[in-house]
């Protein structure tokens, strides 16, 4: 069971804020984050990594990316 943060169209630093907020609530499991710029992709991955979440998968979707994070 995974949750999703849709950060498409949001400008910096909103995608990171939304992602971190969800990571805080969720603690572990799987989280999918949708972003639409490369800068947001890098920022979200960097933020998740700093919270010890792993980037499992990055898939292009539409004009952006679908990123899957996991934590045991």
């Amino acid at each position, binding site marked *: 069971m995974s949750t999703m943060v849709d950060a*498409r*169209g*949001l*400008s*910096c*630093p*909103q995608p*990171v*804020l939304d992602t*971190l907020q969800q990571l805080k609530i969720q603690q572990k499991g799987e989280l999918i984050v949708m972003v*639409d*710029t*490369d*800068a947001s992709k*890098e*920022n979200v991955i*960097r*933020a998740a990594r*700093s919270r010890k979440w792993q980037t499992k998968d990055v898939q292009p979707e539409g*004009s952006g990316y679908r990123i899957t994070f996991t934590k045991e």
Partner: protein
Amino acid sequence: MKNIFATRKGIIGVGSLIGVLAALLQYWGNPGNMGICVACFVRDIAGAVGLHRAGVVQYMRPEIIGFVLGSLIAAYAFKEFRPRAGSAPIVRFVLGVFAMIGALVFLGCPWRALLRLAAGDGNAVIGVVGLVAGIYIGVQFLKGGYNLGRAEKTYTSVGWMLPLVMLGFLVLLLISPQITGENKSGVLFYSLKGPGAMHAPILLSLAIGLLVGFLAQRSRFCTMGAFRDLILFRQIHLFSGIIALLIAAFGTNLLVGQFHPGFVGQPVAHTMGLWNFSGMLLAGLAFTLAGGCPGRQLFLAGEGDSDAAIFVLGMIVGAGFAHNFALASSPKGVGPHGIAAVVIGLVVCLFIGLTMRKKVV
């Protein structure tokens, strides 16, 4: 494909290179401690096209044109051009206006604040403290749910609008070259004295502008974001970039004899501490609410973000107001109405920050 410029080494490398190039641009002719100043240079462009008629600050700065076009080239080369629009454009315009006014009360954007610091201008310390305070207030709004809403994907040509404006400015510059002793050439205004009369050779300025625009787009270099991420996320990624800029500019200044520590008599600077602080407080808050420092707004505009382009237009118009209404400071101190403008700007930013928020779940 991994983006090496977005790594820690990448951002440090880009910051260092910008620091060296900015100090060298001063060495090659740009005004004192103003090798690169996004706010000042946008203001000079506003003067060049006659939106204000402050005789000492009129020049079509090729660096600014290069920043936008360099970012555009990088965005296309790496398939990152994303035309987008619609995240509260009018608010971004107003933030651009007041960001510019705040910066011109201090006499510099964050880039120049760092360059002034790297050249020994003690007043810049107070400016940077104000900048950080403004960003700190902005971060509180972000934590409280402040959000200008989503942008939507749009026509490619929407993303081209500001780059095309910059191309137009470049054409004007090339067909209306400066005539010695004349303050006008074709439609463009030039300065005969003051900072507007000081500039590196056009092609050199343009080339460095393009290079910096390209690298900043790749690395997401942002001076406001540096402090914001540090305060908001305890993250030092962007911060390491501006520290690199500071150290590199300091080293270069030492080497070429541009380091002159002190408070009094610094180039294009005043010593009114409270207003150095408050001008940057306003600018820092406006940048944070708009999501980027003035440089970053130019780079975002180059990669298709038309909301950032609107912020840039706001800065151009804000520069017009700043000089027409005597809000901008001069080496003598703040302008007659600068203090009122800073107060109004802070009230406007608080209104924006307090009323545009989504409920935090």
